[in-house]
């Protein structure tokens, strides 16, 4: 082969790769446009449902299903007491809080015992899901609806499963020990179960970043924006994930993730799929997929729903190190779930979840980061060496940056028209600017972390990473986010 032939082949390969990257970007943008329009349509209906909903009726009407809030806790001594007090003060007619101390190495258990006046419980429970050894079950003398399970360390899923075993109510609300559930959020979250009591299987709520907000007695006193840029960018990501992606998926009954940070599940269905899987760090996405798979396999009618006005606040990482660890773990979890449920990908037998939901995850989140990273190198170099012409380069840059900004800004628009917070105009301006800026650097960084996550996945790296907690402050949040908390992976970012 002559040098000229080799050059031609090289050139053709580069051009083909360039077009592959551009094709992916066009698909990506078209998909986002579709989601944006679908989310808009869904939002109109959801807003009307919200306006018509009457939490007071649910509180007094004796039809609301009793709920068990299951909270795994591992080394949570800094926040556990405040968090639990807030959970015990939620507005809901009948609920219990089952907190599982997952073999904490700090003083979590001692603090719980003292603060809630615990004594051994004689509650009969069914070990429906195998878990690590339960050392004891305790009940509070002061709060009859509080149960504490003390068990050997087995990870978040194992702790969740132990809590589900002990729980008595038909609905299980999964949350994190450091999350703040809004006082009426359970009343809102249960709404789909009231509308479709037989078919509804699981419902997810909205997660928002608490950084920058003022807290009082475990509740949001004043809304505020995160001070640090990293947290601000994540704020936008959460808005995009929950205000666009979830709403759009909800519209076609294809929810791909009910967040473990705030999700409501039918207990019997969770048991039917064997509880939360202990072999993945993406246990909430895995649970969602298992529920889809189970109902399709059994040919059962079912629904999953997302309720945007049921809000749970969680802290997002503010430092590069913790954020990186979290994002790598999330991506590892995603790949684990994709591997476990590979049979569903592009499989029409699984309906819209097989054809669109999980396939979308595979393309956008599984393969996408590699193509994005490839594009960042290959397109500018091709343009510099004259392999590509100007329109191609401009189209690439416009899709990468302009379109990203467009999507983020319109998600904020959707959030703004539904928001009940009194966001200041200045805060909104900051958010809008952040939505434009996140496309320059932050998004690319995220792509790199995903590739690192992929590397960790192939090296079979396990675990959740190291915990970092500094505790609630009464009127301001300065805690560092836990790399272990599920903190609502905004799937389909």
């Amino acid at each position, binding site marked *: 082969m002559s040098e000229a032939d080799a050059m031609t082949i090289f050139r053709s390969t580069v051009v083909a790769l360039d077009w592959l990257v551009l094709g992916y970007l066009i698909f990506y943008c078209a998909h986002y446009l579709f989601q944006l329009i679908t989310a808009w349509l869904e939002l109109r209906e959801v807003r009307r449902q919200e306006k018509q909903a009457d939490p007071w009726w649910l509180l007094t009407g004796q039809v609301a299903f009793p709920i068990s809030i299951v909270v795994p806790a591992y080394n949570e001594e800094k926040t556990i007491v405040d968090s639990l007090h807030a959970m015990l003060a939620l507005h809901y007619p009948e609920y219990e809080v089952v907190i599982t101390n997952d073999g904490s190495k700090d003083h979590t258990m001692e603090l719980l015992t003292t603060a809630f006046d615990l004594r051994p419980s004689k509650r009969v429970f069914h070990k429906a899901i195998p878990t690590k050894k339960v050392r004891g079950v305790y009940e509070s003398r002061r709060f009859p609806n509080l149960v504490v399970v003390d068990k050997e360390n087995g990870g978040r899923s194992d702790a969740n499963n132990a809590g589900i075993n002990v729980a008595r109510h038909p609905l299980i609300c999964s949350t994190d020990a450091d999350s703040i559930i809004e006082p009426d959020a359970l009343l809102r979250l249960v709404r789909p179960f009231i509308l479709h009591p037989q078919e509804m299987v699981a419902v997810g709520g909205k997660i928002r970043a608490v950084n920058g907000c003022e807290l009082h007695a475990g509740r949001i006193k004043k809304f505020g924006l995160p001070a640090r840029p990293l947290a601000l960018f994540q704020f936008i990501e959460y808005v995009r994930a929950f205000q666009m992606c979830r709403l759009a998926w909800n519209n076609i009954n294809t929810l791909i993730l009910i967040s473990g940070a705030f999700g409501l599940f039918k207990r019997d269905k969770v048991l039917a799929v064997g509880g939360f899987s202990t072999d993945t760090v993406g246990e909430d996405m895995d649970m969602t997929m298992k529920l889809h798979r189970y109902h399709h396999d059994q040919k059962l009618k079912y629904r999953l729903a997302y309720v945007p006005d049921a809000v749970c606040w969680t802290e997002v990482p503010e430092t590069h190190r913790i954020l990186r660890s979290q994002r790598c773990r999330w991506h590892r979890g995603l790949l684990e779930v994709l591997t476990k449920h590979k049979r569903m990908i592009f499989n029409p037998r699984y309906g819209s979840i097989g054809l669109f939901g999980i396939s979308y995850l595979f393309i956008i989140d599984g393969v996408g980061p590699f193509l994005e990273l490839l594009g960042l190198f290959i397109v500018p170099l091709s343009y510099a060496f004259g392999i590509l012409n100007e329109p191609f380069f401009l189209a690439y840059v416009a899709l990468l940056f302009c379109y990203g900004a467009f999507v983020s800004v319109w998600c*904020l628009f959707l959030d703004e028209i539904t928001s009940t917070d009194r966001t200041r105009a200045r805060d909104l301006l900051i958010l809008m600017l952040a939505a434009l800026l996140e496309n320059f650097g932050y998004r690319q960084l995220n792509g790199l972390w995903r590739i690192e996550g992929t590397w960790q996945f192939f090296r079979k790296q396990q675990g959740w990473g190291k915990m970092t907690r500094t505790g609630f402050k009464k009127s301001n949040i300065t805690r560092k986010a836990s790399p272990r908390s599920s903190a609502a992976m905004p799937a389909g970012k």
Partner: protein
Amino acid sequence: MADVFLKLVWQASSLLAVLSVIVTSLLVVHRFFRNRFDLRDTNRRRELRRLAVHLVNNPEQIIEARKQYGKSDRRLLLGVFEEMRKQLKGEFAERLNSLMRIMGLMTECLERLNHPIWYRRAQAAELLGNFNDPNVVLALYRALEDRRLEVRIAAARSLARLQSVQSVREIVNALIGRQTDPSLSITEVFRSLGAQHIDELRELLKDRTVPLTAKVLAIDALGRLGSLAAVEELLDIYDHSHLPIRIAAMQALSRLGDPRTLSAAMLAANDAAWEVRAQAAICLGRIGSDEAVPVLQQLLADDQWWVRYHAAQALYALGHRGVLCLRAISEEGQPDASNMAWGVLREKGLAMV
């Protein structure tokens, strides 16, 4: 061709970005004014609420005070009314209704029943449940024919609250249709129908043309209304081929706790569905007859944990004989049964450790 396409892509994307910047600016301005309006509304609403509370305590001043409410207050007043109506009971609730009627809110709600947006119609139907007036009842009956189920449910709920439901069948026709998974709001409407409709509900159970879903709701309502007159109809239907009917019937019979149910509950203990067996155990515990002990003993060895649990609880509820049975099983029963018997005895503080 490719260049035209690429040019189109970058121009369209740039246009969208520019549009985003314009929207951003508009949104910020919108937010600024919205916050001001919201603040003004909140303050006015607070004033209106204060005035409403004053007038509820001093009803003689209502006519005079009407002058203090402007036309623009209507929207806020509806919200205040909605909020306060839930918190007030008895005489004070009546006074609030009078106040709101004088303020013209009843007429406003009647007009809103024709609003093009469905949730406004539903909201109006809900609020009208506070005004016992022939015109309101007529309008609510018309709302039972609304194209949105939510409006029909709100109208039915209001009619039930006003004790103005003339025929349960009309409610069935308006709310059930072909639904197989009806909202719990509909369940609640049936439950709130009141004792005067017990005979009609019993009739529904006998009628073959009534949808099964409606029968399930009627059974649930009969159980909640606590009418022993319904026991015979429930005993006729407890072994129906439709599972939700069997479960609902056993639940209703458990609530009623009538001794005539004993043999039916003992038969239901052998049902193929564990939900029915669990309900049968609860029912047997509620009836409290020693004759149920062998059946409960058998249920204590059931495959399903919840059936075993309810059987053990039922045995405990039977008293001395049941506890003796639990003790015996805990010492030398089949492992699952023995564990459950011991667990429940322990829970009740009766286990010998």
